[in-house]
């Protein structure tokens, strides 16, 4: 009997991400049909203190062996160190902040999704390969935003037309668009998660500026794209998953998900699905109570990822291909299609800082 605790955001503004994470995860779990695995799911309301207490509850009362599911970096930072310190395994379905990949890496912590910088790095590499000379880059002013721009610059490396930090939660981008127009930029990279990205894209499309736009996959994910509509068409975005990645696991996942939930899966659903399958593969080999063996089993990553080739680096973050997708319209639905591979077998920038070598 194995107990898994999932803490994710199921209410409030960010609920769509948590719902997809859960649905993807449960799709794989139910397909496996194991009756010796119990899954406890709780809503963190996107509040760090609530997340911490849920973790406490799962560890103290429910006595779970494994935790997973957190969407946001700040919540992960609140929960993961304490959970791993108590000897629990944590498998990340999304958030993977730099600290946890570098100096704060932990033998009990695995990121199944990526390292936070990865998708931005892909955009940077793409900008370079396209030969852009002066991209204008922007992100909100908080740690993930800074990591994002740094990630972009790491692989782009050239000159910038401008670098702007917007306010978290900003809804009007007229000023930034004016700056872009005046800067002589030849392209734009932005990281504006959630509603911020929707607002920016709508306003940008209506501004008369027509530069190529790049971003990480978050702002072009299945759930959000429909709300952006036509304004998103043609945008290039860095992603390690797309529904058109051609492998059997992915085909099964996309079909299964659509069938069960009657909508297209998102990135978060894909990570949730992979996390569940990784877990199942390890459970086949060892019990979580035998920590050493279980850890080794996880490390093998002996499962069919929807992303194709998948392996863990020494800091237990993925080594994987990262693609560039383009937003297209398929019938009535806006969706993405892979147009290039930006980075092959990419690990993460912080792997050398991690002491687990």
């Amino acid at each position, binding site marked *: 009997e194995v107990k898994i605790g999932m803490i994710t955001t199921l209410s409030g503004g960010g609920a769509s991400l948590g719902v997809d994470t859960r649905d993807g995860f449960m799709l794989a779990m139910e397909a496996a049909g194991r009756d010796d695995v119990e899954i406890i799911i709780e809503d963190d309301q996107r509040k*760090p*203190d609530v997340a911490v207490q849920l973790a406490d509850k799962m560890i103290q009362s429910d006595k779970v062996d494994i935790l997973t599911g957190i969407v946001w970096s700040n919540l992960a930072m609140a929960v993961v160190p304490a959970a791993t310190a108590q000897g629990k395994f944590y498998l990340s379905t999304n958030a993977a902040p730099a600290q946890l990949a570098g100096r704060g890496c932990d033998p009990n912590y695995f990121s199944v999704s990526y390292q936070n910088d990865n998708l931005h790095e892909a955009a940077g590499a793409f900008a370079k390969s396209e030969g852009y000379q002066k991209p204008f880059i922007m992100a909100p002013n*908080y*740690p993930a935003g800074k990591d994002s721009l740094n990630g972009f610059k790491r692989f782009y490396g050239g000159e910038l037309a401008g670098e702007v930090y917007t306010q978290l939660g900003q809804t009007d981008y007229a000023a930034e668009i004016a700056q872009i127009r005046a800067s002589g930029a030849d392209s734009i990279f932005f990281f504006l998660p959630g509603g911020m990205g929707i607002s920016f894209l709508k306003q940008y499309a209506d501004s008369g500026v027509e530069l190529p736009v790049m971003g990480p996959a978050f702002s072009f994910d299945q759930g959000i794209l429909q709300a952006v509509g036509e304004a998103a068409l043609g945008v290039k975005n860095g992603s390690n998953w797309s529904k058109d990645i051609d492998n059997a696991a992915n085909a099964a996942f996309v079909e299964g998900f659509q069938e069960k939930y009657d909508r297209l899966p998102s990135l978060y659903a894909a990570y949730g699905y992979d996390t569940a399958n990784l877990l199942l593969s390890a459970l086949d080999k060892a019990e979580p109570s035998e920590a050493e063996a279980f850890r080794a089993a996880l490390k093998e990553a002996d499962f069919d990822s929807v992303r194709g080739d998948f392996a863990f680096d020494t800091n237990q973050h993925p080594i994987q291909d990262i693609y560039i997708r383009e937003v297209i319209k398929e019938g009535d639905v806006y969706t993405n299609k892979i147009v290039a591979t930006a980075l092959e077998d990419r690990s993460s920038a912080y792997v050398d800082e991690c002491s687990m070598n």
Partner: protein
Amino acid sequence: MSRERILNAALLAALVLVPAWAVWADEPFTITLATRAVIFALAAVGLNIALGIGGLVSLGHAVFFGIGGYAMGILASHAQSYTPLTEWPFVIEGTKSMPVIWLVAVAASSLAALLIGLLALRTSGVYFIMITLAFGQMMYFFAISWPAYGGEDGLSIYVRNGFPGLNTLVPIQFYGICLAWLCAALLFSARLMRSPFGLALNAARQVPERARAVGLDPTRLQLVALVISGAITGLAGALFADLNRFVSPTMLSWQMSGEIMVFVIIGGVARLFGPVAGAGFYVLLEHLLGGVSDYWQIFLGLFLLVVVLFGRGGLIGMLAGRRRDG
């Protein structure tokens, strides 16, 4: 004994008996939940002094709560990494000792309350609500974008801080510390309400011109009340950070201020045990409803509505009658 007193005694008994039962039944999470409620209650007892007696409707109490939290986070993180806070003009080391952290938290939040009060008390009424909110938002945005202590990601402390003679990692022992503080704060505010200061403050709220005419300075009375209030809420913040072993800007957000205020209002404004009843009810409701459905907040909202519409004077008022005791 009035009904309110009986109610207060029952609440106090519950604060002792529920965790005792949890230890016996080996339900550590119940203790965690109770600790959360007790800490929130402490924060709200702080606010109740400003809001209930002083009439200062502060929508910025998260500032003090957060400052208390960051006092803990900063001191402990430096102690954890063996780096001093500053080396100039003299070396200040971090610490993992709760009493020292409390002292710093109380000092820092009082200072903040003093500064905010000096400026904010120029205004009154709704303007006061908004100016305190403004200070809260400033702190919040500052904390989010200031990278030194984690920005929006916050600060994690791996092990709870220590208290001489206790093992704070044992939930019930940490709970004991928090409960002791809550009782001390309740005792203090009970005496305060009836004291000469309480009388003067109460009058300064209702008729400042009268207070002035008898030689009292309402602004100064209110300032002192705000400082006391901020100090207690700051202490609660330090405890809350220790409970979670984590502090982040959410502790400074306006939603946090709003929640502390909600505890006071649903419990009963200016009622001694109002904050306790309010925080306990809210935490319990949040916990129980969380499992009902994804849309549990609808029910939470409905519950709160029922309390305001039908329970004048909050929960305590609903159960013990309108008239205040004492």
